[in-house]
């Protein structure tokens, strides 16, 4: 297992290096000068020159790349051109909202999807299966911003259980923070849970047809025991893959939900900095997201190894 983990970790480092190079090259090589792009068409030559030297555009490209990377390694992402504040600080604030929100939504999604998927698979073709599958169909189809508004209507405006938006901050306590994130997390989790439940069901159904499930039944296990003891762990590989993808998506893909609930998250930051043409922030956030995707993939790989002894052996 240790060798497997080391190998996966090395591949993580290589992916990161390649990703940073690609992002740098894309932003550098994109036609036009980043400074004039950021300042727009009517920029004064003096301001342009000032920005160019501020961005370090007068240096050679390899120098700028090394500077950018070594800055990031020390936690220095540069200074936002629009806000005149360190990007590290801006991102840091947003991460405290986005990461907990993504984890919260993912936890809800798993909590709903696993039982639903297992329930449906164990009743293949019966009313329970058809019902759950119909519900997931609906869950995938409903746009989550609309669902978010319905949640606000019911739980904030009518029942007054939750606030309709905004984030109180973690200094008000863990409960207050989670409370504020509950409605957005539910709105985010709904389509994810629906997809995950479907994946769980089909993965389990595939496993149920395997020969070793028949061996388990021939041993005297009930259908339910066979499913829990032999089916579930074998069905986890495709499910883990989807969970990994979902987390990466939840981290940055929640722009609309953040907008609906007025949450100061990463998605809104990206949106704002793209509108403001603040390349430094965009570049940093993109790198951060890439890092999180690669990290999550690494964790998923480790989970594969824990679940399936054959993968450990192969490396």
């Amino acid at each position: 297992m240790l060798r497997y983990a080391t190998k996966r970790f090395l591949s993580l480092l290589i992916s990161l290096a390649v990703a940073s190079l690609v992002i740098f090259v894309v932003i550098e090589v994109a036609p036009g000068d980043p400074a004039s792009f950021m300042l727009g068409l009517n920029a004064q030559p003096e301001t342009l020159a000032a920005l160019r030297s501020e961005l370090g555009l007068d240096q050679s490209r390899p120098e700028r790349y090394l500077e950018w990377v070594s800055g990031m390694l020390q936690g220095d992402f540069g200074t936002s051109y629009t806000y005149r504040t360190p990007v590290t600080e801006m991102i840091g604030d947003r991460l405290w909202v986005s990461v907990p929100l993504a984890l919260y939504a993912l936890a809800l999604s798993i909590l709903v999807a696993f039982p639903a998927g297992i329930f449906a698979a164990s009743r293949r073709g019966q009313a329970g299966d058809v019902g759950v599958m119909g519900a997931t169909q609906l869950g995938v189809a409903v746009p989550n911003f609309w669902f978010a508004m319905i949640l606000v209507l019911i739980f904030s405006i009518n029942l007054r259980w939750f606030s309709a938006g905004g984030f109180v901050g973690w200094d008000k306590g863990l409960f207050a923070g989670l409370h504020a994130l509950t409605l957005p997390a539910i709105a985010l989790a709904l389509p994810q849970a629906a997809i995950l439940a479907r994946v769980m069901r089909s993965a389990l159904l595939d496993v149920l047809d395997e020969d070793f499930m028949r061996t388990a039944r021939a041993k005297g296990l009930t259908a339910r025991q066979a499913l829990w003891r032999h089916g579930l762990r074998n069905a986890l590989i495709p499910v883990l893959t989807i969970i990994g993808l979902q987390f990466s998506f939840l981290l940055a893909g929640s722009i609309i939900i953040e907008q609906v609930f007025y949450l100061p998250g990463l998605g809104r930051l990206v949106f704002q900095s793209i509108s403001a043409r603040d390349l430094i922030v965009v570049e940093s956030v993109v790198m951060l997201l890439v890092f999180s995707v690669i990290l999550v993939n690494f964790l998923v790989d480790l989970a594969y190894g824990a679940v399936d002894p054959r993968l450990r052996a192969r490396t």
Partner: protein
Amino acid sequence: MTLLSVSNLSLSIHGLRILDGVTFSVAPGEIVAVTGESGSGKSMTALAAMQLLPKGTTTSGHVMLGDDDLTQMSEAALCGVRGNDIGMVFQEPMTALNPVQTIGRQVAETIRVHEPSVSRAEAEARAADTLARVGLPQDRFPLSRYPHELSGGQRQRVVIAIAIALRPRLLIADEPTTALDVTTQAQILKLLTRLAREDGMGLLMITHDLAVVADMADRIVVMRKGQIVEQGETQSLLRDMRHPYTKMLFEASRHEVDLPEAPAPMPLLEVKDVCRDYRLPRKTLFGQPGHFRAVDNVSFTLNRGERLGLVGESGCGKSTLTRAILGLEPVQEGSILLDGQPVFTGTKPNLDVRRKLQVVFQDPFGSFNPRHRVDRLVTEPFHLLDNAPQGAERTRAIDEALTAVGLTPKDARKYIHEFSGGQRQRIAIARALIIRPELILFDEAVSALDVSVRAQILDLLADLCSHYDLTYLFISHDLSVVRSVTDRVLVMKSGQIVEAGETGQVFDAPQHPYTQALIAAAPVLPDLSLAAG
């Protein structure tokens, strides 16, 4: 006293009749073999005895285990019977074990599920004893092994250990050796017989291979299309063979064909000092990757018009050699020449040679694209030709190829799912014949077929030999088939050819110890004339 008594058992799945009035019994310590071709209902009989039937099954009749009628039992009561009173062994050892659990845990589970009071440690100790009993001693096969760390025969031993851990009264084995090599098959059959005799356990063997059970079973039940056509004590059943179907099965199993004389030797395929290495995964992160030599210094010549056999057990390198001859992979050393030209040049197969070579694979179900019609499937090799026949010429070629293999020209417009396994294998042969290749490779081409269908395909081969002057390389693990359809035979072991010679000579007087072991392990039908006398 009977242990298992099946009486008047009929069974339908979604209204389709699978079993029809099946009646037989197994006594304690008795070995009963149920045999028949695919679709005879023999496997469903085994599942019915376990009451592990697919959804939508309706049954009538009785399955009595001692004094209990299994058809009347609740599911909960049946779970108490399965694994405890009846154990079951399946055909595919590669997939019959849970890949993510250790073998110790899987064997111990049988004990723990029926005797919840037994501690984990005690269950594991008993699992270790059971594994030792089936020939997997702890010093070499600790409980912590995973299935993927074992060979097929070893995995089948684990499946047997799971089935006999609680010393059940009845063991059902559904084609337990079909997926195994002959030498492994002989060991597993010996093990099953020993266990049945030692424990006084009834053994119900399901098999398509009469030879497997002829010298092992006490009684034989012959099934066809869901009905029992004949049953009786092994010796008298084989002696009398009252039912024509039994006779047909028996004769088809030992079917021999008449090959036309091979022409004077003139080399067609020359394989010289061929080695094929595979890279193994690195052992350490920065270490040199190791190599596995799958084909080791193999040389032989195949003459024009000759029928050459290649036998060996799984992993011996025969498939690798086949791929190398087809030019699908480069070889590391040596040369493969067809008509003096190399089959592989630079980085790709040599097209000039490829068009002189065709292949027929084992699986008649997996080797066709299900969305293409037969005419398109059969004409696939045309892409190797510079001037492929078009229009009427193409139609004529298709008609001729289909007719040659015993099908009709109008089959050309059908899809592959409309054909049986034997017909599909005929189509595969038509596909190989259509460009009149110099050499055809048959890679286990009849291994997946029922004996009666196999006999027909072998006849077809002999027939084609006299019409088309076929030259072929027949690769198979089935010695009796190779004996019948080849002039010369090569025996392969661990990547090397250990013996080569005239087929009859090699089989009658094998020189190499490995060939001797192979031939000794192969199950043989008793000679009827002797049995009668």
